[in-house]
Structures are given as C-alpha cells and as structure tokens.
C-alpha cells in the first residue's frame, strides 16, 4: 500500500513545484491519442500544431494548446472536458474526431458556456439544438447528397445499389441522404442491403446486388469493409463503378483492396490540388516540408477548427467565451485550409466537397463540388 501511496504522492509534490506561463490564450484540445481511434487523433493533432505554427498569436498574446487524451472513450471525454474548463480555464475546446466522444464533450461545453468546435464529427446530432457547439466539417447528409449528384450527373447512373453499414451512424446517415437525393434527381435505388462493421464475407449481399444489375454501387462505409467488398465484387464478376464517402480515405484501402479498388470514386474534405486559399497553400507547404508526403484531410480539418476559433477570437477582440461564440456563429467567407467556409444556422461548416478517384496506390483529384 505504501508504495502505491508514494507513487500517487510524487506527482502531487512535483505539481506544486512546476509553474506555468500565465499570460497565454489557452485553448483545450480533446483527442483520442490512445485507444480504438488513436490514428485519427494523431493526424488531427499534427494538423492542429501546423495550424498553430501558421498562426501562433492572437490579440498580441501567444496561444497555448492544451492536449488532453480521451482514450477513445465517452466517459474519459467528459472528464477531459471538465478538466480543461475547470482546471485549465480554457476559453475554447477543439475535439474530438469520433462523434460519440464529441457528444459527451458538447453538453459540458454547453453548460459552461465555452465554445466547442469539433474538427471532424459528422453525426448531425452533435450540434443539433446546441448554442455553443460547432464543427469544421460538413455533415453526412451533405456528403451523401454530393455523392448522389456526382453519380447521377457525372457518372450518368440511373440505377444505384446501396451497401450500408448499420453499425456506424456515419454510414446510415450517408446512405439515407444518398438515397433521398438520388431518387429526387430521377434515379432509382434498386437494392439496399446491410452489413455490419467487422464482417468479412459479403458474397450474399453482392450476389443479391448483381442480380439487379445497377449502374453504380454506393458503399458509404469505412475503408476496411470497402476494400473487402470491392475485392469480393470483382471476384463475382461485378464490374460496376463503386462510389463511397470519406471513410474510404486511408492508405489501407489500396493495401487491402489492391487492384479491386482501382477506379473507386470517393468524396472527401480536402485535396492538395483543390486548394484555393493562401492558408491552404501555406499548410501544404509546411506539411510537405515536415513530413514529406501528401497532407491528409483530418489534419487539415484539425487546422481549420483551430483557425476558425482564432479568427473568431480576433474578431471578438476579447477572450470572453460568449463573444467568441457569437463570432464563430457569424463566420462566413472564411478562407480556411480546406476551402472557403461558412457556418450555417445549424452550426455545420458549409464548403466544397472534393471528389477523388483511386489510381494505382494513390488517389487523384477529380473535381470539387460547391455547396
């Protein structure tokens, strides 16, 4: 027992010795640095730090980003939010990527009147009816709409099949929006089948789809399943074009899928070639210099969440969380990293969607769709 007591005591004693710089603007960051979605947290944090290196000062003071890990866990996310607000006295919170964790952070930010921007939580109910919660990305329905428009207008598809992952809120939201828009445009969703994340065998679903002979197959899921579905579809002789959402964007897609995913279209938030803003150019330049590979979407969204917050602080001219909130809500025509950003009345970011296509091991830029 004594050993344990000592182990707990040491940090306390050290804590009292350590002093911190006081005259800084403190912004809290809650990300999953460990646990199931640690990879997302890692890249987002990289992006935020680049964002900070582009713009380290506001109102003549330096910005301090205080990172707190939430272990990819809802309970820990809530603890982290309380800690940042009560103990660190932050004036704003950025995070998390996974919607389920952001949902745990949001009510605490709301209650304490602290503005909260999630970089990449796409679940619509995160910001729904909340005054202090925003996001730097578009929501699933919007992405689904763009997928449907692209399939109908650019690919000329009239009959579509949808493979939905019912275990992921993300996939359900995307599929519903895709179907709604596609039907509205005049197309027809001739088959809609379900799977569950973690499934390995999709031949039953794919055989059912093959019989209906669609022009396009929409798979709004995550990369692992998309790659496996693509592989099994090609083995069954299905040559139909595949289309999916930003869940496809990961190096693993081509590693698992190989040649089968060649030609797959997906919508996403960001592409180097689609950059139109000076901030975006600067971001890519720094990212390239530091990491020597193409920048990813999550990092760019992380940087955008940070920069939107800073822009609002600047316009508010004070560090009063209430005033910052008002200014975030008024954000429009903001020249961010991922494009020109508007914040709509539901606190979602409205901006252009990028469409990319898998070519070999890389993805190439196809087009941008404006809202």
């Amino acid at each position: 027992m004594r050993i344990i007591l000592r182990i707990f005591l040491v940090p306390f004693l050290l804590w009292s010795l350590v002093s911190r710089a006081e005259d800084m603007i403190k912004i809290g960051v809650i990300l999953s640095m460990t646990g199931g979605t640690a990879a997302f947290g890692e890249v987002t944090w990289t992006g935020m730090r680049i964002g900070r290196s582009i713009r380290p000062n506001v109102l003549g003071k330096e910005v301090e980003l205080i990172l707190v890990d939430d272990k990819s866990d809802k309970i820990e996310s809530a603890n982290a939010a309380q800690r940042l607000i009560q103990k660190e006295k932050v004036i704003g919170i950025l995070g998390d990527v996974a919607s389920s964790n952001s949902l745990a952070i949001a009510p605490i930010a709301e209650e304490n009147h602290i503005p909260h921007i999630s970089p990449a939580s796409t679940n619509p109910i995160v910001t729904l009816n909340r005054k202090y919660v925003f996001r730097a990305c578009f929501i699933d329905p919007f992405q689904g709409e763009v997928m449907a428009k692209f399939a109908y207008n650019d690919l000329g598809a009239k009959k579509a099949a949808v493979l939905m992952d019912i275990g992921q809120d993300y996939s359900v939201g995307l599929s519903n929006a895709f179907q709604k828009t596609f039907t509205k445009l005049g197309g027809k969703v001739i088959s809609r089948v379900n799977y569950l994340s973690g499934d390995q065998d999709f031949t039953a679903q794919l055989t059912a789809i093959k019989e209906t002979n669609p022009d396009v197959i929409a798979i709004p899921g995550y990369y692992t399943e998309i790659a496996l579905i693509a592989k099994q579809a090609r083995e069954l002789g299905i040559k139909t074009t595949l289309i999916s959402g930003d869940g496809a964007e990961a190096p693993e897609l081509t590693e698992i899928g190989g040649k089968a995913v060649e030609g797959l279209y997906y919508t996403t938030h960001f592409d180097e070639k689609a950059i139109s803003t000076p901030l975006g150019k600067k971001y890519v330049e720094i990212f390239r210099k530091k990491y020597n590979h193409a920048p990813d979407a999550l990092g760019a969204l992380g940087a955008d969440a940070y920069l939107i917050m800073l822009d609002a602080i600047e316009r508010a001219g004070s560090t009063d969380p209430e005033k910052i909130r008002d200014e975030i809500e008024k954000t429009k025509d903001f020249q961010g990293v991922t494009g020109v950003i508007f914040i709509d009345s539901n606190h979602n970011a409205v901006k252009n969607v990028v469409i990319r296509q898998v070519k070999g091991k890389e993805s190439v830029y196809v087009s941008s769709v404006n809202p």
Partner: protein
Amino acid sequence: MVVKRERDRESSSGLQPRIERARDGTPTILVLFRTCKFVLIGGLVIAMKRENLVKITATFLSLLALLGFLKWTNSYASPYIVQILNLTAIYIILSTSYNLVNGVTGQFSLGPNAFMAIGAYASALLTMTPAEKEITFIIEPIISPLDKIALTFLPSLLIAGVVTALFAFLISFPVFRVRGDYLAIVTLGFGEIVRVFATNATSITNGSLGLKGIKQLTSLWWSWSWAIFTVFCLVGLVQSSYGRAMKAIREDETAAQAMGINTFRYKMLAFVISAFFQGIGGGLLAHLLTTIDPKLFTFLFTFNLLIIIVAGGLGSMTGSVIGAVIFAWGFEFLRWFEEPHQIGGVFIPEIPGMRMVIFSLLLILIMLFFRRGITGRWEFSWDWVFNKLGKKIRVTN
C-alpha cells in the same frame, strides 16, 4: 456443514477479530439491519449490547461525515471534482454488484456491459421528454408507447433496474447450464447480443446514432445514496445465510450441491440482484453523461470492471470499493505524466498515452505484491478498527 467449514477457515486464517465479543464476526452493516428491525419491532435499544451500540454509532457517524463531505463538495468543489466523485459512486455500484457474481459466488460472468446497456437505455428512454425524443430520433421515429412516456428520475431508475433484473432472470436459465470458462463465453455472447440489438433496433434505441439530450439528473446525492444503499444491501446479503451458500458454491460447487444447496437457485439469485444494481448504475451513468450509444457498452467496459474487482480483491466488497475509487481517480491523477513540464532547466514535451503505461505498471505491481488483490478477501469491520486502535493505545501506554 459446508457453511461451518467456510466460517472455520475464515477464523483460522486470522480474519476474525480476536476480541471475544465479536465471536460471530458480524459486520456493522448487518448489525444495523438487525438493529433497525429491533428498533421497529419494540424499540429495544436499551436492551441492545453495548458493543453493538458503539458500532452503530460509528457507522452512523462515518455516514454523517461522508454526507457532510458531499455537501461541502457540492457547494464548493469544482464541477470537475464533482464529475469524478459521481463516477466513483457509479463505479462502486457497478463493481460491488459485479463482485457478487464473480467474487462471492465464483461465477465468471462477462455480461455486465449488457446489464448496464439495458439499464442505461431503459432509464434514459423513460426520462426523456416526448419533444426531445422527436428531435433525437432522426432516422426512424420511436415506437408507440415510448414516444409519450416521460417519468421522473426515481421511478425510471427503478424500472430500469427491474427490467435489467428481469432480463438476467430470463437468461440465467440458459447461462447456468454451463460452468467455468463456458459460462464466461455464454455471458460474453449475451453481452454482444444486447449491444448488437441496441445498434439495430433503430426505432427503440436510435441505433448507432445513440441518444442525446438526456437530462443531467445524476447528482452527488443520487449517485452516493445509491452507492451506499448498494453496498449495505450487498454486504448484508453476503453475510446472510444466502451469502454463505453463495460462498459455498464458489469454494466447491459439487460439494455444495451434495450438502443440499440448490446451486442453480443461489447462482440465479446472485445474478439477478447483481443485474438489478448494474441496471441502476447504467441509468445513473446515462444521466451523468447525458448521451449514450452502443459503442459505450462494449466488452471493454466489462473489462474495466474486472480490473477493479480483481485488483481490489476478488470476493471482498471492501476491495471492490477501494478498486473503484482508485480506478476513478487514478486515471485523472496520472494525466500529470502526459502534460508538458518545465522541471528545473529541462523541458519535457507532452507524451500522450503515458498514463496508460503507468497505470498498467501499477496493475502489474499490485498483482505481484498483492497476489489476491489489494484486500484479498478481507472485509472492513469496526471490530478491526477497534482492535487496531486498542493495540495502538496499548503501545502508547
């Protein structure tokens, strides 16, 4: 016979306090229970033994101290501390009730995540107002009777507990057809079934989107009253003849059966009571976090509880309480290791994930130096405290 053997073992291993008056080792809680009965029946407080009176007073005073502490925290401490204290109480409820099945009855169940999920969803769906349900259920509207119901906190928590207990009662028939490792696998299976059901039954649970906008009703009073109530009930149960039958099953199921204990009945009883409290715990958790979704109730949650009860001391309620407190506070204390520091002239940048490493090391240390958890099977009792105090006084004299 078996029961007697159990008792003998305890006293021979020195767990029984040595003073003569505590020859039955009765713990405070049961004493209080019995006392209450006596008081209610005839008001025979004066007739009671002096020693018991002292113990009751000690229990009463320590409860009063706890309540005083909570009152002070409620008004002066930051919401961050309150949040962790609430979690501590919830972990105490969950771990002590889990300990009843795993530690006391010796049935290796891996299903508490299922019970928590049922409790959380049931209570949340009952307290949410129809308007809130309407805006949350955006994929499919909620099914008919649930869309109109809105209850207050206590009835919905109780209903959640009862529903969970009912579920445990139903699954106990298939579950207790097997023993040991197989039991673990079957309960694990039921845990997954509940989670998958919550993911797919969109018109009841809002599927993978989860529920949002649950009112934050869990306060220190709610969570700690339930925690105290749970601990009192469970310790009372463990010390009763039911509890001794459960321990007999843990030591040797076949022997217990041969001695005439209806093992199925006692295992089911432990399972159902445990499920009731886990349902309550789940409900309190839902109303603390204000949002739940199926991903919260994965097997990892069960695993955390397992860590608490094994590190605390399998079979000891005291151990479960200590384990819960360490688990709830430990992770927050250890955040210090992840923050950037300026110590002297050395700057240490932040290291995400460092506290997990240290926490794991602590667990390894606990398991190395306290092979049977922090407390083993030792239980707190006033006799022990008085004994210790008595010794101290003697030494100083």
